């Protein structure tokens, strides 16, 4: 084969990949358009019951009246943002600590154990986290953490049965930390040894040297890890559909401890659950509108995350 035709042959898959991405955004946007056109910006608004609206879309069947297209998706958007932000906030702290432990504190033998452990935690399928959540964590929360008074105090609004914000955030954190740890470990290892030794020579304790020199130097990497992890958390559908309680409800922080036990349902989980009835046109366009929101926000997050990562590579820390 000549060189010229080899270049073309290899160029085909490259161009194909780009076309697939463009097709993905275009197709989802076209399908989402009727819902967005009907609702406008009120799409993000809140209403009495988002689940009732979705139910109406299913019932409307194949020739849905215009009123069936009405959707106020605020509880779903809020649930997505809430679980993502909480999980990423907890995940950032734990993964920075874990990375420090692996790179600077752990005895070599222990550090050698953690690498496969992190890889394993990253590889466990989300459905298995969901299964353990629904069969182990949810009953535990239901039997031991929720008190009867708490249950009764909100019984007229929402039943507390175990699945909800707490279990969702715990599992989501567990799912995204491995990715963050991997990125932060790489960055910590790349900090020149001399920088930390300089601080040590000035009489700083080793922990202070780690925090004030190494961690400070890799701040862009930490941000990049958090951004990439939130792209991942945003799109988690299956695990959250299993343990979130699957109710279009917005838990409010000022409810006190009950906040943690209240059920919710993020956008991604809604898509996974409603995909069965997608032949109904009103539901179809609503589901695609949700997918478009997820796709655009994760697109934004992953592009900005990799931009931050790229500036780090060119920066001083290497």
């Amino acid at each position, binding site marked *: 084969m000549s060189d010229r035709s080899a270049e073309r042959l290899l160029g085909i898959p490259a161009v194909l990949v780009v076309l697939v*991405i463009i097709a993905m955004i275009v197709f989802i946007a076209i399908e989402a358009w009727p819902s967005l056109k009907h609702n406008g910006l009120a799409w993000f608004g809140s209403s009495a019951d988002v689940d009732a609206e979705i139910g109406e879309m299913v019932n409307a069947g194949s020739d849905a009246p215009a009123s069936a297209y009405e959707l106020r998706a605020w509880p779903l958007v809020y649930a997505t943002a809430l679980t993502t932000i909480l999980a990423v906030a907890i995940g950032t702290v734990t993964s920075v600590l874990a990375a*420090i*432990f692996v790179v600077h504190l752990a005895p070599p033998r222990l550090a050698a154990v953690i690498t496969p452990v992190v890889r394993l935690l990253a*590889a466990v399928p989300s*459905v298995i986290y969901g299964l353990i959540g629904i069969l182990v964590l949810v009953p535990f929360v239901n039997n031991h953490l929720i008190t009867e008074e708490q249950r009764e105090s909100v019984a007229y609004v929402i039943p507390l049965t175990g699945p909800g914000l707490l279990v969702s955030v715990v599992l989501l954190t567990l799912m995204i930390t491995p990715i963050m740890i*991997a990125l932060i470990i790489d960055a910590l290892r790349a900090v020149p040894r001399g920088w930390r030794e300089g601080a040590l020579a000035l009489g700083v304790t080793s922990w202070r040297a780690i925090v004030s020199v190494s961690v400070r130097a890799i701040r862009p990497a930490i941000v990049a890890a958090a951004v990439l992890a939130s792209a991942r958390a945003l799109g988690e559908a*299956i695990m959250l559909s299993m343990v979130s309680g699957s109710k279009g409800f917005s838990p409010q922080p000022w409810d006190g401890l009950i906040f943690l036990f209240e059920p919710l349902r993020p956008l991604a989980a809604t898509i996974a659950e409603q995909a069965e009835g997608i032949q109904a046109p009103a539901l179809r366009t609503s589901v695609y509108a949700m997918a478009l929101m997820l796709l655009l926000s994760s697109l934004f997050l992953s592009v900005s995350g990799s931009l931050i990562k790229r500036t780090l590579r060119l920066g001083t820390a290497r």
Partner: protein
Amino acid sequence: MSTVDAHVRSTPGVGGAGGPSSRSRWQRLRGELSLWRPLDLIGVAAAWAVGLLLIVVAAALVLYMGFRGIQYLSLDMLISRPQAGAEQHDTGGILDPMVGTLLIILLATAIALPLAVGTALWIVEYGRPRWLAKIVESAIEVIAGAPSIAIAIFGLAIFQLPMMSWASFSAADGGGVFGRSFIAAGTVMSLIALPSIFTTTREALQSVPRHVREASYGLGKTRWATIRRVLLPTVRPDIATGTALGMGRIAGDTAIIVLLLGATIQLQAGSEIPLVGTFQGTGSTLTSYIYNNSPTGEGNAPEKAYAAAFVLMLMIIGLNMLVSLIGRRRAGNDLPR
């Protein structure tokens, strides 16, 4: 013990090996820690706690799944087909989901591997025009970051197009295309494996030194011959690593299967043609089987779900061990990205 004695012992190299040394190291540590600020001590303790917690969580996860798996999995389940049933013990085995997982892995890898390796070769070895190469690289980053549920629902839109009717069933009365089949799920699933194969291959190609290529050109080989005879053999272990990682992601992805495989309990051929019919038909994989048999799903047979999850875990751990086995010959760390 006098203070002088303690001082001498705590000097490195004087304590010698064994008990006294470790004791003096402990004393030295205590001496240093007493000078630290409380906040720093809390920081160190937290880092240790998180590190150990990770190990404990992973160990608990593996042990618990292993315990449940041995409890509920029997040889009979592995070789019998799943059935619809009201009670857990009526619902049969997990043969069809296992076959389904293997079919999906085979199909998706067969599509993703040439795509990813071809793209990586083009980017590193040709990569002209430069702007196109940049777009291609960001496209792959977008695929890697896109939620699999969004990719899945895009696949549904594609495979429900009338021109895609060959890939799945159509309603007999000329209604819509069903859009759910092994072909649909496998094709869309290839996008999940693509980024990891691409990234490992590209990084390996970039780490091949320039002079290796120049030596090959110097011997009169063309670029294409260099790729085939020099570069591909060199980066083969990395392609294998990326493929194993990608297979793990395929085996573990649930969203695409739930949306695109039709979730029938048994494999159901889409047409009369022997092998092609299976690919046109619907079925289930281990992940969708677990999802449907969890208390939130339609089946609600947690024992069966545990058994299937155990098999899936073994598969994932096996693929992971494969990665580290290949990785031993490579430099750098293999942490997930």
